[in-house]
């Protein structure tokens, strides 16, 4: 549907498209009264299949024209797209052929915008496709043109005096293939260079396209360089600023259910294998859920739908970002519902058993219809995510006047000119919805609306940017109308102002580069701004370069091993923990060298630092024979106190059973000249997690903690970890051997100021664990006493520093973060049940978590049945499976009878402030630090204002959880009393699978990345 003022009477009119009945045009007569003027206005009345519609002034005569996309040239569908030229007096003349826009094919929607900044509207025709995903084939197929399914681009020649659009698809840089299954299109200046870019949402396995306008009438598809992952079945999209930072964000829709039983019986994410196959075919990472791409302002986006809990709105179509309650924050409106839910797994497996090959074509069609009738249907209430600020959203549905419907296209406009935006929704087989916005009745929020108008030199204002300064705040919008799903919205721009009473000024960036500032705008009214004729202040746009880290000479190569092909139910890989770097002066030249240990099949390398700060690969030490080992942690220390740095390396990999030779740790003794000789001693053979040193008994020799990561083959079980005491001659004896958790990091620190080093341990499914050193080789677990009993997390790293300058060491823990599919609180923890439920000698780790208020199993039915085949009998169909709400319901076993139960109650990365007494005070790191997992932390405590520098992301969760890829790293700045002051992103490429950050020089850091290059960058103190 499209909304626009066709007769310039100040009231927006409405055009509805229909699939099997005629389209309709309604004239707004004020007071929310409309008149059907379809017939007298010259709109063609037939039952061809209309899809999208857009209102735009294509001939720059000041009147909105209407362009309708049609599905045609396929089976019995015969039609062309239609261009209704507005002749004034509410009369239109269909002129598609004359204008060269009579395309005939599988059209979805057209977006009119000015791609060459010449003041006339060019057009991108978005088409879908009828190919089936039978074969993913190579992504290279997107180079093959398709005449009815391929997207098209036409340049408007109006500015050259010709009333015609010319097909410039060839050479424009856009793909025009059958692979693109275009459902969504919208435009915005994504990279802020003054040229309008295009976002295309494609259904199925094809990537979404982000066409960056190159400024020379060509586009460059750049989705993978801007965005780490997208929605898979992208259906609707809108682009606008959701956090008032003046950068436009992208919100796109998919079909993940939020209702727990629909969720459990619907086809969801790809299996891990299929995801891998798609990747191999050249497709980017996609998940079957909504995505919220937060613009980081440096031509990259952080996807935060999981964190904002906006990721699941079921079968969703239109996404419209506007400030619906005029509180100064843009909200998100989403239409959803599906007449026929074809992804119901019971339907696929049990109801649809028909061999089509047995029937002739007409019988097949009949059968298809019958099958379609059998498909389950779902009516859903549309959703508003009310923006609460600070990236928090509240979900409103029925309480915001929404009722169950099969809603589809939608558009907004202040139809009654009362200052708030109303909504019109096109529904399937039911009357359309007109939703009058009543928020003005209950709130006193102010607003201001603008209408932008071009002048004779530059006629069409669509695409202009408007910045509003008021109340000490800035608000930013772009004038673009094609958005959501197959729809276009009002040309008027609305800003909600909340309680702001006065507008300081408004700045318009016209597409020709001129900038115009307007003062004296009236609030709570429509202000018309006409483009000035002066050409002063014409800006020249150019690409902004962003500081980016330099690649370091080391590249890590992870060996291919898929843990979950052995342990089907595990949520994360445990075989990709490296690389590990150890800075230490090995050759005694006073310069800190770096040892970097890698994955299996890759030899460790020792980099010797040179006087000029560069590094060379050490030739003295050849670690080639060490390639069977996967290095997961390492530490340099002087084992025998002979004045040189020795090296202890912890092996891991999770590939073999415990005690396999490839797990053996290694100790290298420095000969004093930088030659590291492996000590011929038998060390432990476990899947390592963390090693740390500390002289806990103050005898002058470093003692060790060896923390193990997992019992290979038994995800969730706690392996043995060890505290080892130095015997002062290069050997160690075991002081403690404890099963304490799946250890990822450890730290020795004196937490209670008794001059004895205590031990802090973190890992998966465990709290931040405090072992207090009681002297005489005795350690006592005082986690609870220190106030950490509720800190069960998926911790990756732990550090200590006195952040608040109170003379006590605080604990900083890097956790999985909030941008995570499973949610956890103390009241509703994620639970891991471990038992041999089917008595086959293998532990079965089964995870349950709270999914929108309901306890559900994490693993899919198919995965659970693979692990526990007997469950198939109990849960024959998905309907039955969808009722599971507890481990007892699933397995028949009571919680009390289950061998081991673990939990997660805290997902956030945290600081635990040490008050000097035992009870630590928990404070979460700022929201920017919760967008991804935090993998490693460096704390800069050179001054009283501390900085936490972290690296993040983890790309080795199962596909069901998805990549944690929203933040490669950041700096959190504190004031001298430990209050959060500011946040900056590190200048790292987006989406890195970071593992470690090392300070290698004053202000210079090295970041080690799994299966990728490593990077260095400098942080200048300011």
């Amino acid at each position, binding site marked *: 549907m499209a909304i626009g003022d066709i007769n310039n009477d100040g009231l927006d009119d409405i055009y509805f498209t229909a699939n099997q009945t005629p389209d309709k045009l309604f004239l707004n007569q004020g007071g929310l009264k409309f008149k059907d003027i379809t017939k007298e206005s010259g709109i063609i009345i037939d039952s061809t299949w209309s899809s999208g519609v857009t209102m735009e002034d294509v001939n720059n005569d000041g009147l909105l024209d209407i362009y309708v996309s049609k599905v045609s040239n396929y089976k019995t569908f015969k039609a062309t797209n239609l261009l209704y030229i507005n002749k004034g007096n509410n009369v239109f003349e269909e002129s598609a052929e004359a204008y060269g826009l009579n395309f005939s094919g599988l059209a979805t929607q057209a977006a009119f915008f000015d791609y060459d900044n010449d003041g006339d509207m060019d057009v991108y025709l978005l088409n879908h496709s009828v190919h089936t995903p039978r074969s993913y084939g190579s992504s290279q197929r997107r180079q093959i043109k398709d005449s009815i399914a391929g997207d098209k681009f036409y340049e408007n020649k109006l500015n050259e005096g010709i009333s015609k659009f010319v097909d410039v698809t060839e050479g424009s840089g856009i793909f025009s293939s059958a692979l693109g299954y275009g459902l969504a299109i919208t435009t915005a200046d994504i990279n802020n260079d003054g040229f309008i870019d295009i976002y295309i949402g494609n259904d199925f396995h094809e990537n979404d396209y982000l066409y960056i306008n190159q400024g020379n009438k060509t586009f460059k598809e750049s989705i993978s360089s801007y965005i780490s992952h997208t929605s898979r079945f992208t259906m609707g999209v809108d682009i606008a600023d959701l956090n008032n930072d003046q950068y436009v964000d992208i919100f796109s829709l998919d079909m993940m259910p939020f209702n727990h039983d629909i969720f459990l019986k619907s086809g969801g994410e790809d299996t891990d294998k299929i995801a891998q196959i798609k990747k191999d075919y050249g497709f980017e990472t996609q998940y079957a859920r909504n995505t919220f791409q937060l613009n980081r302002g440096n031509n990259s986006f952080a996807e935060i739908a999981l964190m904002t809990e906006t990721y699941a709105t079921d079968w969703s179509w239109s996404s419209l970002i506007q400030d619906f309650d005029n509180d100064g924050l843009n909200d998100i409106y989403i239409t959803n519902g599906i007449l026929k839910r*074809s992804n119901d797994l019971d339907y696929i497996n049990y109801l649809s058993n028909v*061999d089509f090959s047995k029937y002739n074509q007409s019988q097949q069609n009949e059968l298809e219809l019958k099958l379609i009738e059998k498909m389950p249907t779902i009516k859903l209430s549309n959703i508003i995510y009310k923006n609460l600020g600070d990236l928090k959203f509240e979900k409103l549905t029925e309480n915001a006047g929404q009722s169950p419907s099969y809603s589809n296209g939608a558009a907004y406009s202040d139809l009654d000119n009362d200052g708030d935006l109303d909504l019109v929704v096109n529904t399937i087989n039911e009357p359309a919805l007109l939703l009058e916005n009543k928020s003005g009745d209950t709130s006193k929020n102010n607003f201001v609306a603008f209408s932008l108008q071009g002048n004779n030199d530059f006629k069409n204002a669509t695409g202009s940017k408007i910045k509003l300064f008021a109340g000490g705040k800035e608000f930013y919008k772009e004038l673009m109308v094609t958005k959501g799903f197959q729809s276009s919205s009002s040309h008027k721009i609305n800003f909600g102002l909340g309680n702001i009473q006065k507008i300081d000024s408004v700045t318009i960036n016209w597409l020709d580069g001129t900038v115009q500032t307007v003062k004296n705008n009236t609030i709570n009214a429509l202000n018309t701004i006409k483009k000035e004729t002066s050409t002063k202040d014409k800006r020249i746009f150019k690409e902004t370069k962003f500081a980016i880290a330099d690649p370091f000479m080391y590249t890590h190569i992870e060996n291919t091993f898929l843990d979950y092909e052995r342990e089907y139910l595990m949520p994360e890989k445990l075989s990709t923990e490296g690389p590990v770097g150890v800075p230490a002066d090995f050759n005694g030249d006073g310069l800190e060298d770096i040892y970097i240990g890698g994955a299996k099949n890759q030899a460790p390398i020792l980099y010797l630092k040179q006087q000029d700060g560069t590094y060379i690969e050490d030739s003295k030490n050849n670690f080639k024979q060490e390639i069977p080992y996967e290095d997961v942690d390492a530490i340099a220390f002087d084992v025998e106190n002979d004045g040189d740095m020795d090296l202890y390396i912890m092996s891991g990999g999770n590939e073999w059973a415990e005690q396999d030779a490839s797990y053996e740790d290694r100790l290298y003794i420095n000969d004093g000249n930088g030659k590291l000789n492996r000590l011929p001693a038998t060390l432990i053979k476990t899947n390592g997690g963390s090693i740390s040193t500390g002289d806990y008994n103050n005898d002058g020799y470093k003692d060790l903690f060896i923390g193990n990561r997992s019992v290979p083959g038994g995800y969730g079980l706690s392996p043995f970890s060890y505290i080892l005491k130095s015997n002062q001659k290069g050997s160690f004896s075991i002081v403690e051997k404890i099963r304490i958790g799946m250890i990822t990091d450890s730290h020795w620190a004196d937490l209670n100021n008794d001059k004895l080093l205590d031990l802090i341990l973190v890992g998966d499914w465990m709290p931040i664990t405090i072992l207090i050193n009681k002297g005489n080789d005795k350690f006592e677990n005082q986690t609870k006493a220190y106030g950490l009993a509720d800190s069960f997390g998926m911790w990756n790293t732990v550090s200590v520093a006195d952040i608040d300058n109170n003379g006590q060491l605080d604990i900083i823990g890097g956790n999985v973060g909030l941008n995570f599919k499973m949610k956890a609180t103390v009241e509703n923890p994620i639970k891991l049940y471990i038992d041999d439920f089917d008595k086959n000698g293998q532990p079965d780790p089964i995870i349950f978590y709270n999914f929108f208020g309901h306890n559900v199993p994490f693993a899919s039915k198919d995965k659970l049945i693979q692990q526990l*085949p007997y469950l198939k009998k109990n849960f024959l169909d998905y309907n039955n499976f969808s009722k599971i709400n507890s481990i007892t319901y699933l397995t028949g076993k009571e919680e009390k009878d289950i061998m081991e139960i673990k939990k997660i109650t805290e997902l956030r990365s945290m600081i635990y402030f040490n008050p000097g007494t035992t009870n630590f005070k928990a404070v979460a790191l700022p929201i920017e630090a919760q967008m991804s997992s935090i993998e490693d932390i460096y704390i800069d405590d050179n001054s009283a204002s501390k900085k936490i520098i972290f690296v993040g992301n983890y790309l080795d969760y199962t596909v069901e959880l998805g990549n944690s890829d929203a933040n490669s790293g950041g700096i959190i700045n504190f004031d001298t009393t430990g209050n959060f002051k500011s946040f900056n992103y590190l200048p790292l490429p987006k989406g890195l699978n970071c593992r470690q950050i090392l300070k290698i020089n004053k202000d210079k850091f090295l970041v080690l990345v799994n299966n990728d290059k490593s990077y260095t960058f400098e942080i200048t103190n300011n």
Partner: protein
Amino acid sequence: MILKLFFNTKAFFLRRKELKNLLFVCLMAGSVITFNSCKENNAYKEKLQNPELFQNSMKKLTDVIVYDIFSPPVASRVYMYPTIASYAIMQKAHPEKYNSLEGQINEYTNIPDPTDENINMNLAAIHAFLTISRQLIFSEEKINEFQDKTYAELQEAGLPDNILEASKKYGDLVAQHISKWADTDMYKQTRTYPKYTILDEPQYWKPTPPDYMDGIEPSWSKIRTLVLDSAGQFPPKPPLSYDLTEGSPFRTQLMQVYNEGTGTDQNKRDIASFWDCNPYVSHHVGHAMFATKKITPGGHWMGITAIASKKSKSTFDETVNAYANVTTSLFDAFISCWDEKWRSLLVRPETVINANIDEEWIPLLQTPPFPEYTSGHSVISRAAAVALTRLYGDNFAFDDTTEVEYGLPVRSFTSFIHASEEAAISRLYGGIHYMMAIEEGVKQGEEVGQHISKNLVTLKK
């Protein structure tokens, strides 16, 4: 249609009513005097002798296997154990006619003897069959429904309760015995063995369109064989080495699949479709996905066994014996074949053709989700044909109506071997196998079949 149903229902009620009246009269009279008309109802005896009783049970099992979607090797296991239980009871019923399986089949021990004289051995065989079937399939209620209906019909035909109960009891006992043995065949353990990790090199198997399913049963060779000493007893020769250079033997065979495997020749197309036997074929239309379910290759040979035993007018016990021989052969043949499949890990023609010859090429049949070499249908069809030939002779001509209910026509064969050869070559016409997998598969099936013929002797000479 509705009218007819109505009448039938009415007739049924009438019959029930009459029966009730009759029974009432007999009971009244019983204590005083025996009327001629109230003679014991012996119709059940005939019913219990009728091999159709076993045929129907087997058919029910096939239907449930199709509904529940079992892969071909797993289906062969689901067919085998219930059949062995029935055979064991038949052997106890006719010790003069049949040999015990103890000593002939790996780790198998004799079932307990029947002790209650009220046991009807045929009924016990049915009961044991259904009891084990129920354990191996998922949709238990479908077996329950069938069992209830079958027993009710027998009771209606006069089956006394004491015979029913005694037979059920013995059937349960045998089922327990067989299940205990079945439990140690490594099936349970192999459920959680590692999945196959895709190897990058082009000669190795990769998941295939449209669903890119995981490889089926990569550890099936770990399953305990019945008559073979091990999964690897009859290894076929290695496949031709992967070589795409023009004129290489591999390429020649690849191009043969490319040219013949899309069903352009109607005759070959018919053959390929007839023997498709893919238990789960998916169809994608936009977001919608439909699935078609069919019998497995093993299921097809169960159908042929039914045809042969019926045509030969086999008795109840002979029918069970035929199935016992065929299911044993199928079971071992699948293990032998799967052993080779997951050893050679050969890539499917569809994958190679799409990557190197023609990206758009689609085989006539949907490529099943496991490595190519050797052809399962070739191996198991031959092994089953050898078993049936031994029982019913060399030139046993028959009309194969097995696929009629799945919408395919009848095909006629001059012998079991004839049918098995057509099954083998159908995989080339279906575009899912190279010629070598068919030729070597047939050889492998022959070897497995002959070995079983020699080492599994059920009928006493």
